């Protein structure tokens, strides 16, 4: 598969940029350890089981940023223009750019979950179900990175990263949304972040099953599918202006 050749190149770019890779895995890890230490004071959402999924989702935002940056940089240096003269379809380009970052997201999630487990994280429900939710969100974030990278400049990408990071506040990883209520809950309900966090927390803390988290999965599925379709469409547009 020719998209594999592109994926190999992008994976090399990730591996050969140790600072970004270290930030992508290291920063969420530091955050997990710091917040977990604070959790000793009794804030329930800071216990490893409730905190770790939020940290994993936070880490995905950094992966989104990296994936957007490489694409944006390739556009600005005209490397993308050269690559687009190769006989690949838009879906090949999306998978070639996405797969390495999905691998990074997966590695990041495994490291964080493992450290979370050492700190006392446990799952009352199916681990596979949690993995499904997180995998869908990883695809969503990387696809979002593709969209941003395909339309924004390198400088604009940093701004977009900050904006997405702010939006994730409505996921409820850093504080209890129910306590604030009102607009925060309304906004949180129409974005995928809260649904992803609610679903993974419900499975891990309460042992919820597929049926229990189905409404959340619909939201996550819709956002992820929409992001992938939009990423392919954006690439199609980029290929034939």
């Amino acid at each position, binding site marked *: 598969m020719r998209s594999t050749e*592109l994926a190999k190149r992008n994976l090399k*770019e990730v591996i050969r*940029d140790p600072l970004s890779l270290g930030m992508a895995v290291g920063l969420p890890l530091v955050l997990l350890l710091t917040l977990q230490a604070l959790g000793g004071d009794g804030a329930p959402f800071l216990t490893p089981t409730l905190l770790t999924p939020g940290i994993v989702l936070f880490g995905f935002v950094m992966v989104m940023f990296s994936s957007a940056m490489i694409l944006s940089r390739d556009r600005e240096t005209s*490397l993308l*223009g050269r690559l687009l*003269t190769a006989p*690949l379809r838009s879906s090949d380009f999306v998978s070639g750019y996405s797969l390495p970052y999905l691998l990074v997201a997966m590695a990041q999630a495994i490291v964080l979950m493992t450290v979370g487990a050492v700190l006392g994280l446990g799952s009352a429900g199916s681990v596979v179900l949690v993995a499904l939710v997180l995998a869908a969100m990883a695809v969503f974030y990387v696809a979002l990175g593709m969209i941003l990278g395909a339309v924004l400049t390198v400088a604009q990408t940093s701004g977009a990263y900050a904006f997405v990071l702010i939006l994730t506040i409505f996921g409820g990883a850093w504080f209890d949304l129910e306590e604030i209520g009102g607009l925060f809950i309304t906004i949180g309900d129409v974005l995928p972040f809260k649904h992803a966090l609610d679903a993974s927390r419900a499975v891990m803390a309460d042992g919820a099953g597929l049926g229990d988290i189905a409404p959340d999965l619909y939201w996550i599925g819709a956002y992820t599918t929409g992001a992938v379709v939009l990423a392919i469409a954006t690439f199609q547009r980029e290929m*034939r*202006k």
Partner: protein
Amino acid sequence: MIGKVVVTVHVDDPVAIRATGLAKRFGDHVAVAGLDLTVEEGELFSLLGPNGAGKTTTIKMLCCLLRPSGGTASILGHDVRTDPIAVKQVIGVSPQETALAPNLNAWENLGLMAGLHGIGKQRGRRRAAELLEVTGLANRAMDKVKQYSGGMQRRLSIAMALVADPQVVFLDEPTIGLDPQARRGMWDYVAGLKGTTTIVLTTHYLEEADALADRVAVVDGGALVALGTPAGLKAKISGTPVMMVEAPNVTDGALAALRRAYPTARVVPAGVEIEGDDLSVYEIADCLRPFGVEIRSTSIKHVSLDDVFLELTGKELRE
């Protein structure tokens, strides 16, 4: 049920690139205004024109990177609008920018393009090794290309266009930033491809087009201004010979005397330039010597593609 049967007949057509009325508009701006071109297989065809003439836009349409606003174009019979994958299968492109993967080494950059074109690992490696030798990059092949000089990056960029053995190659300003020696080496290599590979070359270096191109298309304002062989284009405007007389101290009196014999005589920085069919060095010397003018040399000025462009469009090509 009777199905529709489509039979494709491949006629032996020597045309590699055919563009008819090819046009591109960006809003109100017309970048390419109905270009008609045919490039034969194995031909080295050069597109000349000042910045903004529409050269790169034309190449981008032929490479399926820009959708034409009007007209049609095909590469080896594959329509650029309806069959872009087939077009991309047979082309190689060296864009105006070096367009490299900075954290990969030269070997990996070449392998990337070979892999994307699906030419097979063994063949890709062989071609990459060959091109690294030709471009003089073999001894730096394992260094990350972001550590390369501009000239080295440019050489690698050209190699990346050629690594998949394309039948049609587009070289957009390929030798910008190369030193004269490297440029000459690249010319030799590109010239060696003539006959087997169709090459479309855009350049600002007129001597490059003059030395390499079988035919030249002069474009300006998105339109074709002239088309022909370099010699043919030069012949069109070289009806009257021009003699250059190198003389540092041409006085007004000397010029007046010369003009009585040759009314076209005019002073230029190096001396005097005279246009005419019956020019005599002896007669010119007889006109100038009484005024103490020292004639250092005389020569017949050859018409260059620069002159062709100036004559056709009234513009300098290197603006």
